[in-house]
């Protein structure tokens, strides 16, 4: 039997099938947990995911499938919840979020094709899950979120732009810079 789409589940829920929401919880708990655990910490991820689902449940009637897919919508809520959580905890300096790496590196990076940003040796190191997770922890949060959404959730740059509320070109350039910083950290 084909799996129901998120939008179909939401229609069922809105038509009074309360249990349908549980399917969404089952479907998105692990992806959201990973997203939030990597942006905040594993200890706080459960609370953030729980808060995210409560926000989703409260605002489900506002979800408009014409504007964006459910996955994009739920990750936007998760990202905002995580940001609020970190802001409350003051564990990140938000001025740092806007800072970029130095201009020489950027102009150099613009000329490298995407495929060559991470050499094979670096990629091989990242295959070790523990190493990848530790490396990601060292990465700037705004770069980390782009990488997680693109490689873990396999979102397109357009979808990431919607989640992060950033223009497509900004997301693309953040992705390149994230790969360069990742390479710098590993090397």
């Amino acid at each position: 039997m084909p799996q129901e789409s998120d939008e179909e589940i939401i229609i069922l829920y809105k038509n009074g099938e309360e249990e349908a929401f549980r399917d969404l919880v089952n479907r998105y708990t692990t992806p959201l947990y990973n997203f939030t655990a990597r942006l905040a910490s594993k200890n706080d991820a459960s609370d953030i995911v729980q808060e995210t689902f409560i926000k989703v449940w409260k605002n489900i009637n506002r979800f408009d499938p014409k504007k964006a897919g459910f996955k994009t919508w739920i990750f936007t809520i998760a990202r905002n919840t995580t940001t609020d959580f970190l802001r409350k905890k003051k564990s990140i300096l938000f001025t740092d979020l806007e800072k970029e790496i130095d201009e020489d590196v950027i102009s150099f990076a613009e000329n490298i094709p995407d495929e060559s940003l991470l050499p094979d040796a670096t990629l091989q190191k990242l295959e070790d899950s523990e190493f990848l997770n530790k490396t990601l922890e060292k990465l700037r949060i705004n770069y980390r979120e782009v990488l997680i959404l693109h490689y873990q959730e396999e979102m397109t740059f357009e979808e990431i732009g919607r989640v992060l509320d950033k223009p497509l070109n900004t997301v693309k350039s953040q992705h390149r810079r994230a790969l360069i910083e990742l390479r710098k950290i590993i090397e």
Partner: protein
Amino acid sequence: MKDKLTKAFKNSVYEPNQDLEGLIWSSIIKRDKRNAQFKLWAFGLVGVASLAGLVPTFKILFTDLTRSGFYEYFSLIFSDTGSIISYWKELAFSLAESLPIISIISVLSLLFVCFLSIKYIMKQINRDQLISSLTLSI
């Protein structure tokens, strides 16, 4: 590179606590139940208030109907059929003019609110039962 990175990310997935899904679901059910109970009380209060308001409003309506002479005009319908046929237009206007519009609107509004709250109370009772059955299934 993209495939390799995607594979690396997928292989390093953190597994959440096994209870997390249940915790999320039960906290949603708890909030849902709290909301349903709050609405039940709120609609119940509105229903009782509108029902209580109906008593004086009905009294005012009957007083207004007596004062305006509505009953006199109305009794004419049953007493003098011949005159009614000749002067039906005048009688209709007199009846309409003697209607205490504000009192009638007040009574109808309160009746509407009362029936609406009964409808929502029934809805919330059904919802409460549904949520209780979901709580049992956790």
